């Protein structure tokens, strides 16, 4: 006998036991995904929901060892997608309202903004996680509607605007570090930070580790990762487009600046 998994659930509701046998006596294993937790009811391992939302069950391919052992025939991952009823909630491609309380994990792809650069590393703030939306809600201080303003002009103006952008105004975002050796996978010793990133660039990067108390550690050492949006002249010029793996150009003026470009998609 199989137990039906509910389609819509609330925190604390048992969704399915870990092992179920189907009609032809083969055993199906369920593994807990996002929004679920493993717990015990009467000494039976059960997957419980921890969120209010829609239940998604996806098949997971068996590993070679599991196929060889022949103990389980199929494996499914149970996830609960938080269904927030709020006008500011955003929809993903599948029309599912996505959860904005998801924090970056190892291997996640994130979009970050460069705050400041030094010889050894670039300090960034994490804006969004790919496929799960903005990292945090702005709480009235205007973090997500961040606009750069130039306080002064002239030769010192550029320098000042870098300092302004270097400080996180609200101090609310999660921060990350891209070390110089994590920027490219080849010729690591020739990489210079100033030739790769500038403050205010938007970078697509991968989370290496959740790091220490202050920062996540990020890397851009694959083709798909690097600068996706950048403006010329330290953010005072126009939007640039990549022309190869290390140059970006302003189409109207022909200015070229060095960057670690992400492979255009």
């Amino acid at each position, binding site marked *: 006998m199989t137990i039906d998994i509910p389609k819509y659930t609330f925190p604390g509701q048992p969704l399915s036991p870990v092992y179920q046998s189907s009609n032809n006596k083969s055993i199906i294993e369920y593994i807990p995904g996002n929004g679920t937790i493993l717990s015990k009811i009467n000494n039976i391992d059960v997957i419980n929901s921890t969120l209010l939302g829609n239940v998604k069950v996806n098949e997971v391919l068996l590993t070679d060892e599991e196929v060889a052992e022949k103990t389980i025939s199929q494996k499914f991952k149970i996830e609960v997608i938080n269904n927030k009823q709020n006008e500011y909630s955003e929809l993903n491609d599948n029309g599912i309202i996505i959860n904005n309380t998801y924090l970056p994990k190892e291997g996640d792809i994130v979009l970050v903004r460069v705050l400041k650069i030094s010889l050894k590393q670039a300090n960034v703030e994490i804006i969004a996680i790919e496929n799960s939306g903005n990292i945090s809600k702005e709480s009235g201080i205007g973090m997500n509607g961040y606009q750069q303003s130039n306080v002064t002009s002239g030769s010192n103006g550029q320098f000042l605007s870098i300092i302004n952008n270097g400080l996180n105004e609200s101090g*609310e975002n999660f921060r990350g570090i891209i070390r110089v050796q994590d920027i490219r996978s080849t010729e690591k010793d020739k990489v210079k930070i100033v030739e790769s990133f500038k403050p205010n660039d938007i970078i697509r990067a991968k989370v290496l580790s959740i790091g220490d108390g202050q920062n996540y550690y990020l890397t851009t050492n694959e083709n798909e990762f690097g600068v996706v949006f950048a403006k010329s002249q330290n953010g005072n010029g126009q939007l640039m487009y990549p022309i190869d793996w290390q140059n970006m150009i302003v189409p109207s003026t022909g200015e070229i600046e060095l960057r670690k470009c992400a492979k255009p998609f």
Partner: protein
Amino acid sequence: MSTLDRRRILGPANVKPLIFGLSSSQSKQENKIEEEEEEDINSQISKTFIKTGLITNANGSSYLEYNGNIISVSIYGPRPVRGTFTEKTSLDVHLDDNTETISDLLNKKFCNYIENNFTTVINLNKYPKSGISIFINVLSINNFQKYKYKLLSLISDATTIALINSGIEIIDIVSSTFDLNSNTVISFIKSNEIVGLLSDSNKIYKDVNDFNKIIKKLGNDSNIVKNSLINYLMSGN
């Protein structure tokens, strides 16, 4: 929240907010509460009003009204905490009393109660290096001297709903109930596990059985509360 606001979006620090509606003395109403009604959990539930997601700046929020008690709870987080690496999220609770009825000591007691309740329930391991803040606003109180723990049980229920609204993972719904005779509030999860208990009884219990009876009664009530909370949550779909 960071106090750093160099772009002056929040306005000057000494600014006074506009206050609409009742003044603090007027909101300290003492409507007569029928004691029989305090025994009947079903009639209390039918008089309760809940709404979620009203505060759009917060990650999650709830608003609860029952018999002259008005509570609004907002959840902020998970958001980054500075300092050393922490594997689990930390929880902090703030209670703001607009009616100026709750003493500082009781305020602290209430905050501790809510914090203890929910640290056991939130899936803390999911949110490393971060903190979750719970802000409770008490907008109106009815007969605080006699029903102070009733207010606490309402706060606890409102916090549960706000946490669910925020999308923070919790292992079960916390439902709290109040007993007038013994002046006791107990919070339950999973139908009979107690996560919080606060009692302020003047009378001395005769024996353990006496207290067991109260726990059993409140346990039954909490199941009814839990069911109605679930009904509310599921009807939002």
